[in-house]
């Protein structure tokens, strides 16, 4: 999503009063950067909180909301002054405000200076923040090892990696190996993994780990054999 698309989507979905508030707030923060300290938390109440795209599923962690778009436009309106307020907006922000900061990162001229915020979000167990952190900004700036770890964490906490920017292209062979090892660990515990893990694993199939998963098909325990069958059946579907 680029800035023009964000603006158009917001014009379609927000009320005239909400848009008027946003214009006024944008002018205020452009004139005085500290005004964003109260405008940023108010954005949801004033402009709306529903999905930015009509009919989108609000439970989808990757769905943009109306307040996400409003917050991004507020930060963009601040120009260069946005960077000086960003860390504090994140620090004092609730989950929605933090998501707004994270979603704004690729639209601000920050270089890698926003990585501290991305790292913090990925360290949490809040799936909304993890999903918001793993957008184009993370794809461009996260070091390889951190990106791989983030994808693994997504699978661990239940963020669907199909929505993560850069998957599977950005994952390294080591990332694919870690994910295969995770599948083996889960299968050995008789548990399931999401089908989409194979998108990453099969980009760089690690022979040793995949052989270990396949060996579970002959496990002496029923639950492990069944788990291996379920996990590997997804592999065939993903390939097809």
């Amino acid at each position, binding site marked *: 999503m680029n800035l023009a698309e964000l603006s158009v989507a917001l014009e379609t979905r927000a009320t005239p009063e909400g848009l008027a508030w946003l214009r006024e707030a944008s002018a205020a923060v452009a004139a005085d950067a500290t005004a964003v*300290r*109260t*405008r*940023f*938390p*108010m954005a*949801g*109440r004033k402009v709306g909180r529903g999905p930015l795209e009509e009919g989108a599923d609000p439970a989808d962690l990757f769905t943009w909301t109306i307040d996400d778009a409003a917050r991004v436009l507020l930060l963009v309106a601040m120009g260069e002054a946005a960077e000086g307020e960003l860390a504090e907006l994140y*620090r*004092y922000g*609730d*989950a929605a405000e933090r998501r707004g900061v994270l979603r704004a990162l690729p639209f601000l001229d920050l270089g890698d200076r926003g990585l501290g915020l991305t790292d913090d979000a990925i360290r*949490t*167990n*809040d*799936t909304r*923040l993890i999903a918001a952190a793993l957008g184009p900004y993370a794809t461009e700036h996260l070091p390889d090892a951190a990106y791989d770890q983030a994808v693994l964490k997504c699978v661990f*906490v239940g963020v669907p990696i199909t929505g993560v920017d850069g998957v599977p292209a950005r994952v390294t062979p080591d990332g694919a190996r870690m994910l295969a090892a995770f599948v083996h660990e889960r299968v050995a515990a008789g548990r399931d993994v999401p089908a989409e893990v194979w998108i990453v694993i099969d980009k760089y199939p690690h022979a040793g780990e995949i052989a270990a998963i396949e060996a579970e098909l002959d496990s002496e325990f029923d639950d492990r054999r069944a788990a291996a069958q379920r996990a590997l059946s997804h592999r065939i579907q993903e390939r097809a």
Partner: protein
Amino acid sequence: MRIFDPHAHMTSRTTDDYEAMAASGVKVLVEPAFWLGQPRTSVGSFIDYFNSLLGWERFRAAQFGIRHHCTIGLNPKEANDDLLRREVIDILPRFLAKDGVVAVGEVGFDAMTPAEDEALREQLALAVEHELPVLVHTPHRDKAAGTRKTIELVEASGIAPEMVVIDHNNELTVHEVLASGCWAGFSIYPGTKMDEHRMVRVLEQHGPERLIVNSACDWGVSDPLKVRKTADAMKAAGFDDDVIDHVVWRNPVEFFAQSGRLILDDLAEADLSATFEGSGVLRGERA
């Protein structure tokens, strides 16, 4: 019976309390920011406390079908720490702008010091600026003088009196508070301050207009079911259901609705396995 407890420090209470409150009819409550029984020594403690009132506690209440709102402010006891007072008041605007904040508070007097005076004036000005009502605490000692001084400061601030509730009243302070145009709050405690039977007498004398009843339950000896017990005492004294509803529901709704941020819709069936920022109220691994 539908009950709105306009003053309950739920951070200090257990999930059993939430269950019992919901069973007694509590559908909505307001948790005022206050002190925690031991002085905090840094502004970071306030930031975390405010965030928990807006986040975790709101989530926890919703798990039991109760809508949780809060008030944000610097209490008078801790206002006496000069450095802390300045630092906390500096960060208040960020929090006063947030969803779920329905008033500035608790503010007011404890020992009636110049520092408390300054904190109260500054926070009344913030309430005007953020178009929020104010919840004012009155002192336990020298209550009559503290209440009078509070009313003077409210008048001097220029805030509309109907935007102010002066809390912890008794038989002696209620006249003056009502005459000022402010709302009069009553905290119903086991043993001290005010009990439900004395509250019934106050209601018989003054009627239900601009009177608000709360449990003020916190970490001390207190009872989260005191609003229901007051309603029951009113019933036993012959008040009809409409007057009871006026006191335990419509009055706090009318007062806090002035914030424009009150949410009164029924919460859907509680889901105890839901999580807030990755944490839930259940122990152990989730399915």
